[in-house]
């Protein structure tokens, strides 16, 4: 097993480039995958990938591993940054700060376990009714508000909200026992 994430983050605070390189090797494909899914453009996604790890280099001192999960921060920040780029708006640092406080009840540092958990997450999404899953993907990976979703799909706003709440409820049912420990 490799060096724990929080040790590598501390080394980044000490300006150790090899620590950032190690985290890039560990999570680069995950971050790139998120950016590519939102942007659907290799060049733009690679720019976001580089920006996210450069950002980590600059803000590592503010990241507290006791309060937040690094892969969650990387994935959520990548999603925010990619959507900001998609919608041609300035990156918002408050969403990035909030992402540093997302705590996952499992860690994804160990590759085998990471593969297992990510497979579980994808399987949970695949089990959602198609109407819910499509809506979640439109909402989460295109950054549309529920009002914009209603306009895009032609569905009533109440229906949109109901399906999205149901989607989160199904994730809560799958991971709720684990997510209880994520509460602060």
């Amino acid at each position, binding site marked *: *097993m490799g060096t*724990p994430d*929080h*040790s590598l983050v*501390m080394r980044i605070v000490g300006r150790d*480039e090899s620590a*950032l*390189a190690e985290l*890039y*090797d560990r999570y*680069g494909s*995950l971050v*790139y*995958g*998120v950016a*590519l*899914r939102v942007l659907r453009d*290799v060049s733009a*996604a690679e720019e976001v990938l*580089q920006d996210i790890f450069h950002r980590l*280099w600059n803000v590592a001192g503010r990241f507290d*591993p006791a309060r937040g*999960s690094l892969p*969650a921060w990387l*994935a*959520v920040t*990548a999603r*925010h940054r990619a959507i900001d780029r998609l919608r041609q708006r300035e990156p918002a640092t408050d*969403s990035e700060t909030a*992402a540093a406080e*997302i705590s*996952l*009840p499992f*860690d*994804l540092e160990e*590759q*085998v*376990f990471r*593969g*297992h958990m*990510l*497979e579980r*997450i*994808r*399987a*949970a*999404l695949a089990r959602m009714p198609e109407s819910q899953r499509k809506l979640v993907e439109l*909402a*989460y990976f295109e*950054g549309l*508000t*529920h*009002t914009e979703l209603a306009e895009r799909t032609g569905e009533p706003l109440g229906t949109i909200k109901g399906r*999205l709440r149901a989607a*989160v409820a199904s*994730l809560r049912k799958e991971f709720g026992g684990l997510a*209880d420990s*994520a*509460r*602060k």
Partner: protein
Amino acid sequence: MNAHIQFAEDVDLLALGLLGEEDCAALRGHLETCAECRARFHEARALAALLALSSPPAEPSAGVRKQLLERLRAGRENATRDARAPKQEESRRAGFWGWTNLGWAVAAVILVAGAALMMEENRRVQGQVQSLQAEIAGKQQELDRTRAVLDLLRSTDTVHVHLISGSEPWPWPEGRVYYHPKKGLLFVGSHLPPLDPGMSYQLWCVSEGGTPASAGVFRPDAKGNAAVMMPLAKMAMSPKAFAVTVEADGGAQAPTGPQVMVGEQ
């Protein structure tokens, strides 16, 4: 409708980033005063993070890594250059103070330098403490995992199943499953051939009725070795047989690819 109920219903939407600005502002105001909604929001935010993590991983071009490291080095060189400039500026200004103010200037510089050194030392020590704390936490996690594995291996009730492949040339892929009905499962594989990009191995537990359930997706290391640990809480059945197949990255709901090895109790 009761305002709290309305806010509680929108917490999940806020966590997904789906509320418009006006609704966001109102709900954020409510979260500051409602512990129940705040707890729900933190949970929903963690669940929303899982959505981001559900994206299939993809390999960027090798040039991105190189550019990133070059960017870091260029930033450090600029920072070093900028750090020297203010010091040159200070010594130039000191020339204008005149001899009558020199004593005060020297005293001020000594005080400032002393304070800066103390602050730097303090920051360095704090950094070391944090680093050690992080290391200790990491070591504890590793220790807990190691204990769980040893506990499983040492138990006299642990079932040991040997998975073999009959079709591959020597050294053929093989695996060993250590399964305990109250402790979970450990799979260790060896001589696993490397896979094409986009493919992974998937471990299956097969019930007495023949229904397979996924126990994990993995890729071997450069030496062809792999390990999967599945705690008891994640096992949905008592398996009677185990198999490994080749599937697309992310795994499959049921075995679809070629079987690499199999074994039964």
